[in-house]
């Protein structure tokens, strides 16, 4: 296995007036390609911040990050966006679907952004995988929370990304819907070989991952 993601002395702090608040202490981390990793930790431990840094959607205070051979910390926002396109995907706790687009259009969106061929057919296939063919023409407001998150998962896998970041993907869902979403995330991880990084409180999610990390007071610990 080769490392898809690697950090070196990664830190993050913020200032409030005169005071500096350290969110992440210097940390070194390697995630292998195709691996499923769960990051757990109490609220405020810096889990979401770490995920944002690893995904290149936030800038660290110091340290370096590599995605495969590319150093993320050396790229500007435009280059990061280009790197994300077709390589990195996201699933968020509050789904983040575009309310003006139907379920199908939401899934088509990343495919169209990378100029994929037959985006409609590919998106329909992804929606079929998450059992939402019948709801493809519905708008997000017309779907339940579980259905919206399944659309988000379908969208995340639509462009066959190398790595998928999920931030509390079951946080807004009931147990049954949450179970469905976990099942989907890990099944697609296995089937497509996509690296999966999940930030969660949910023990059910943690139990499904190959590797578990715990973040506590800005320090990262390997569990097991």
């Amino acid at each position, binding site marked *: 296995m080769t490392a898809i993601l690697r950090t070196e002395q990664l830190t993050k702090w913020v200032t409030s007036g005169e005071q500096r608040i350290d969110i992440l202490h210097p940390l070194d981390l390697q995630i292998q390609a195709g691996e499923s990793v769960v990051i757990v930790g109490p609220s405020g431990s810096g889990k979401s911040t770490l995920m944002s840094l690893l995904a290149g*959607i936030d800038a660290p205070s110091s340290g370096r990050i590599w995605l495969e051979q590319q150093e993320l910390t050396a790229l500007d926002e*435009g280059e990061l*966006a*280009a790197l*994300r*396109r077709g390589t990195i995907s996201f699933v968020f706790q509050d789904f*983040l679907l575009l309310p003006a687009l139907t379920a199908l*259009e939401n899934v088509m969106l990343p495919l169209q*952004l990378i100029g994929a061929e037959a985006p409609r057919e590919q998106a329909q296939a992804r929606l079929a995988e998450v059992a939402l063919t019948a709801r493809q023409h519905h708008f997000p407001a017309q779907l339940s929370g579980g259905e919206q998150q399944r659309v988000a998962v379908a969208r995340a896998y639509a462009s066959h990304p190398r790595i998928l970041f999920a931030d509390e993907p079951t946080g807004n869902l009931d147990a049954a819907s949450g179970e469905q979403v976990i099942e989907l995330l890990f099944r697609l991880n296995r089937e497509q070989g996509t690296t999966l990084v999940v930030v969660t409180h949910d023990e059910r999610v943690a139990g499904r991952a190959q590797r578990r990390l715990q973040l506590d007071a800005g320090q990262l610990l390997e569990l097991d």
Partner: protein
Amino acid sequence: MNARGLLRILFAGELRRSGQLVGLLVALTAGCALLWAVAVVSARIDNGLNLHTAALFGGDFRVSAPRPLDEWFDSLPPELKPQGQIISLPTMARYGQAMRLVRLKGVDDGYPLLGELRIEGQGAQGSPPPGQVWVGPALVRQLGAGVGESILIGQSEFSIAGIIEREPDSVASGFSLGPRVILGMVDLAGTGLVGFGSRISYRASFLDPDETRLAILSERVPPWARLTTAAEEMNQTRELLRKSGHFMMVLVISALLLCGVTAVLAVQGLLVGRLRDLALLGLLGVTRGSVLRLFVALFLTLGIAAVVMGGLLGELLQRGIVAMMGEPLAAAGFKPRLVSLAVMLGLLMVAALPPLLAVTAIPPKRLLTGQVSLWLSGRRAWLIIGLLLAGLGLILLLADALRLPLLLAVSGGLAIVLLARLQVWLLGRLPAPLEPRLALLGLSRSPARSSIALSGLTLAVVALMLPLLLRGDFIDQLAGQLPVDGPDRYLIDIQPDQHRGVSEVLGAALGSPPPLHPVYRARLTRVDGIGAKRLAAREGRAHLYAQRENNLSELLPGGEAEAGELIAGRWWGANPPAGPEVSVEEGWADALGVDLGSELEFNVAGQSFRARVSSLRRVNWSSMEINFFLLFSPGALTGLPHTFITAYNGGSAEVPAFEETLIRQFPNISVIDVAQLVGGLRELVDQLARALLALAVALPVIGAALLWTLLLTDRQQLVREALLLRLLGAADGQLRRIYLWRYGLLGALAALLGGGVAIAGAYYLSQSLFEMAYRPGPGLLLGFLVGAVALTLASGYGTARMILDSPPARLLRQRPS
């Protein structure tokens, strides 16, 4: 916790979200500044025109009488006493053996009440010192007497202290004879000219056009005196005042439209960003009333802050606009300032209440989806629409002046909203590549919000375009009313047996003789059987026409075009009618309730006769050409006593040489020089044109700034969408293209729709209000289209830049929580 405590905490929380409130505050402040500036400058122009008219007239109103008014003055309470008195009479001035008929004017210390009396080489002056006179330049030439020399007037000798360069109220004396001589009131008494049998005119002038004071005074005016106002009497400026008033009304309505759009869009923007908060408050059990109070308090606070800042900014703006005109304008007073602040606050509350009522009635679960309409629905919507329509109907019923603009604004607004809705619907059905389709989807999938945004932008475009579209034609029309070589000298009292002789002299001097019009002095006795006394009691100018002598004339052969534009009825053509018929000027007809077919009865020197009204005319009085309120069919007045009048342009010479010949040959004829009046009117038109240009140019500039701030308030709505696209890896170019498409489309649609409505509105207003031909310039239209698209594109580019420069994590933190 009590309700007040809860509200205080929530209110403080709202105020802490300053980032989201700044956009709203900026937009409202800009709107308020715009309204303030337009209202104040309009009021200053209006007051300036009235002041100019009053200066030409010698005061806001005056009482004229053929006998002394002193006893009457004594009977008046202090608040009704006049501010100035003038006594004028024709008399002879002698210098050595030379004598000349002059117009003698005795003035008091307060002279002139308005305007500026300028003496050659001495600048502005008041009344001449005792023992001295100021004289018109013609007298110096005619008598051969210069400054410092003495002339004899009546029994007194006076030293010529200066030559009159500008006499502000020269028109006020009406048709009078000879060059002007001005002297102090005390000196006038010493001349021995004021006494029984003198042809003296006493004039008391009043400032302050207060209607109540005028009404009280009019009841106390003795029957042998006449009360007239500048607004009524000045035929030449009345049209200017009326039309400029209409133009400024268009400007103020445009500013109001812009402010209304600002208020609606700003409120909508804020409330859309608060949907989750509102849901949360509902979930926490906060009552609807408390939420309403919270937001009303918030909007009031923002509104008050905006009107304070907007007032200050507006004051700077209006001063800037006036400075741009490069000349002082009359003061505006507090009224337009206070009204503009109150209107802005009122507009904000009117814009805020319906969506607030709507949004607080929506269950929290639906609010959380974000897919809600901020418009009222169901019975309450119909109730509010019904109340608005009833209020509108009441205004239309009661207020004549508001009827046209209101109907225009309401029908235009409805048309815009419906068309915007249609456009948004059509857009959603167009196939297009990814970026424009995403842009279109954003517009078409939120039809209510997009329609509001598009309607708002469109209305703003209409408001910006309308004054500019009308301005050029309007100013051309104003300038066209004063022909460059129009008549500036009149000959009156030409007797019928002098007609041929006068024509010959004028023909020889001017190339071709100007037409000589017959003048019949007549009193109106009845209109459709109603007596003159009853007619005089009507409002407006009726008393002027029903009580004083009217000048009648007959249509000269081929004189139809010069007689004015027919607005009803027809000319007589080659076949004279069987009975006497008359063509009536529209203002005269309006004042006395005269219409086509009305029967008018007159008395000329004891002879009564009747005539039927066969046409109504519109006359351009400021052209200075000879015209008449009442023009009879050829031959209708044959046999009645009359004189003739004619007018011509005297050229650059102060007194044309041939006039000396005329006066010697026909000593009874009087020459009246109206060059000063024409000069005054030209100044007035120039000033008005400059003022309207400054205002019409300033409005789009300020309006564009306002639109810019409005487009910025829309940005928050786009952040969530942009964030997602960015997370999905949308490239810089793709994001930029999406926003450029979105804003470009919005701008182009608004410009096209707004341009269409503005052209239709300008055409309608040109025809109905300004009575002028409308010629839309393609350059201006194209300029507006390009300008609107460029403005919205720039805003779209700014939005894209803001998003492109920010890491998505920052945007994630900004998303509605």
